[in-house]
């Protein structure tokens, strides 16, 4: 069981979250050509080691998070809100 330190709720079991996949993908603009979309949607890295991935705290605050996780060891290096604005509000609040 991976434990994820949700910046909004605290450390929780990964069963409260749902995995969103590679969080480092920058999706092209909607009017970008099919080739760019194809690259973003289908051409994915299968990273061995630290990867940035997205998780949603779906049974919690429902925030999407960016998690840096080692795919070999499950070690988590950092967790932050995917939405910068929300992240900044959180920082100010603290």
């Amino acid at each position, binding site marked *: 069981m991976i*434990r994820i330190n949700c910046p909004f709720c605290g450390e929780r079991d990964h069963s409260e979250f749902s995995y969103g996949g590679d969080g480092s993908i920058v999706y092209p603009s909607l009017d970008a050509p099919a080739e760019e979309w194809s690259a973003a949607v289908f051409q994915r890295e299968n990273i061995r080691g630290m990867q940035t991935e997205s998780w949603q705290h779906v049974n919690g605050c429902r925030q999407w998070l960016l998690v840096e996780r080692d795919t070999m060891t499950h070690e988590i290096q950092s967790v932050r809100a995917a939405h910068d604005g929300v992240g900044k509000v959180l920082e100010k609040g603290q």
Partner: protein
Amino acid sequence: MTAVRVEQGGVVDRQSEVSFTWDNRHYSGFAGDTLASALLANGESIIGRSFKYHRPRGIMSAGVEESGAIVTVGVSHRRDANVKATTQELFPGLIAHGQNAWPNVRHDLGAVNNLMGRFFSAGFYYKTFMGIPPFEWGRKGTGIWMQYEKLIRRAAGMGRASRDPDPDHYEHGHLFCDVLVVGSGPAGLAAAGKCAEQGLDVLLVEQDFEFGGDYLNHGGSDSIKKRNDAVDALQKAGARMMQRTTAFGLYDYGVAGLLQRVTDHLPNADPHLPRQRFLTVRARHTILATGALERHYAFGNNDVPGIMNAHAAVCYLNRFGVLGGERVVITTNNDSAYATASNLAQAGAQVKLLDSRRQVPDSVAGLLNTRGIELETGTTVLNAHGRKHIKSVETAISGGNHWRRGMDEECDLLLVSGGWSPVVNLLSHRGVRPVWDSNNCCFVPAETAEPVTTAGSSLGIWGNSDCEASGLVAADSAIASLGGQSVSVSMPATGGWETPLEPLYEVEIKGVTKKSFIDPQHDVTADDVRLAHQEGFVSVEHLKRYTPLGMATDQGKMGNIIGLALMAEALGREIPEVGTTTFRPPYTPVSIGALAGRAFGAHFKPLRRTPMHDWNLQHGATMVDAGLWQRPWYFAREGETITEAYIRETETTRTSVGLCDVTSLGKIAIQGPDATEFINRVYSNAFAKLPVGKARYGIMLRDDGIVMDDGTTWRFSETDYFMTTTTAHAAKVMVWLEELLQMRWPELRVHVTTVSEQWAGVAVAGPKSRDVLAACLAEPATVSAEALPFMGVVESTLANGAPCRIARISFSGEMAFEVYVGSDYANSLMDLLYPRAMQIGGCLYGTEALGALRIEKGHVTGAELDGRVSIDDAGLGKMASETKSYIGSALRKRPELQRTDRPRLVGIFPKDRSETFKAGSILCSPDEVEGLGEGWITAVTHSPELGHWIGLGFVSGGHEAWQGKVLVAADPVRRGNMYVEVVSPHMVDPTGERMHG
């Protein structure tokens, strides 16, 4: 059969006699006994029959590694098979039976297998039976193997589980602690004590029903006092201590799985108590003090009843007060058996100690002489004699690098010590491969960066005082890792014997074939390992799969190291080069009931009911599961079948009016200044110009251009939308919208909120729907044709004052409205609508009629939008905007999705209109009724409008490609094959006059 209960000693409660039943005979033991110790005290020798050869087996150990005394506990629906008698706590009224034997374990006809033993080598059954008849003769061989297999499984195997439902209940629980200590032996107690002293929140778990581990196995009051003091101190310090609790698995982030046996030892348990608890514990630091298991070695007939691990005999003597035999031979390759010899001699046994090493320290050997123990060095056991119990042993004398025959020794108990294996299983669960310690001939845990520390004999430290010291060292590392102040204690050295152990895995003399077991639980012999090697299985992982070595409940506890050593020898390599198998959870078996907890039957998944659930039931609904929801399926009137009911409901709705609970649709409030832009990007069709007061049907795609979901979205103001989704995809769409807003388009000022539970919904459908609805409103004119045209939405008030939302939208193809009220008003809405509908001959309808209505119209649902279908496949390509960009717009155009021969949505008629057919059938061209076919059928219904059965499905190229041709609806295992014709999916009212009217 000369085991006896000695006059005094042990930690059993001799004042409290416990009666129990073994194989239909009555016995008694003491409180504190295990089933094994009580059977031993009663002189029982044969407790089990082996897996394959049905050889008689006795008690071979005193713990979880037991491979002989495997029994069935309990009767009828509480029958629990494959229980190790050595871990089963005795309780009044316990009923146990031998297993894998007929008529019983003492006289087992299956033992004929043993006579044929030389044929039954590893892989025998597969090699022999899978080839009959030869494969070349045809495909039938596998089928016949299936028949053999049933018989073979019956003959070779373990106990039989009850087929009745489990009458007990189980619980799941969650725990947190600073330090989890697994094992309460000298190391575990010391570690837990020190951590608790430092104010840490300590959880100590012990699989046994007594705390103390090896403290319990030592004679004299010293070690018992040590144990008692440690337990008292822990209790005073507020540590949580759980006995009968096994840490069966270790997972990421300090998570451990615990199985707590709550009532398994109670004769008349409180029915409110769970039988077992499955606990998930999250520890900041874990200390593993899991001990070590004594190994045997392979020699001839080393499984005869009356042969057990040397240390087990000490446990039976000192913990349970049972002396295992009068004439005892002990065979060892290490120092640990010397204390055993001394203990047994002191208790009155005549002991002969055979040490395979030629030199042993004088101090140890001298000690034995004073007790009248005979010691022979350079000697070991070659073969055991005795059919039902050991009678004598043949010895072998070391001749350097080979063995030669020695004298015979009579005995009634043979104790074996082939060295010790630290229990490294839990760390192995974490993927930490153990490393080989060639001094002690065992695997020891490797270093790990995780907050897990190993202590005591599980680290390869043998003496109890050294184990205590290593427990303190482990506590220090835990305290330090949790940020506390620790005083470093010096780590005791591993091992701890005066003379090093001499590796001994097998004793054989060339040319003499004997059955030498390495894994007695699975009847794996030394020859099986050599056979595996001979047949080309070179790694230990192969070995485990070719022979059943270390599989199932054993998980390598008994025979792993010997198997490894023999494989290494056959390969001419060193043990560490051959490696060790990865131990997997669970360490000891976990019942399925405990895993399931309360999540079974009706509690297997959450149940969702609509607010008018009871109202529907009161009005004759039969319910059906739709995902997690229960929805009305049909409303049968007196004497009606489901078919009659849904056909009537469909006809009534088409000719008059029908009411249907549609609450389960997903509902999402989308609000904010950028809501219009957001919705316009999400849907494939145009939404930018949707006026306030209007709804629109929308289809959303995934990034890859495949359809995700469809539904309607209603606009109430410039910034306020109400989106409905399908029942099936409600949660998925919500997650998707959140992902888009939080991850992809953070600049959009939009808020989405699920309001599925806030609104109850009813579809009012049919030519008279407006009359019925208008009569239920405070202002009937709200829904007039002028005020509320097709696709119009309005917020209004019911005649009873309840606020409501109405949209004139249609799924049935008739003029229809969806009416939503706050969930609390659901019944009042139905109470208004229903009498008026009934007055004009209307009815309630369920999902079956809903399905019939939509199939007639060719409207798609989740059955069609199955994640493989593009918007063009669904026949909705015209809706996709060509002028805007939206999610999926780029990849929808990829060549594969644009192929004209892709399966497209079609309507299906049976060729013979009087025939029926089934959803799930494969559509094939009549000249090629095999393979993947040309398409498939997703939904079927009887169409009252058309007067025959119709269906929806997908066929390559769509209906245009198959005009005037027939297809075969192949359904070979259910309905049989039949001919169908393909038509446009819009089978009723294709121009949509009725819903616009």
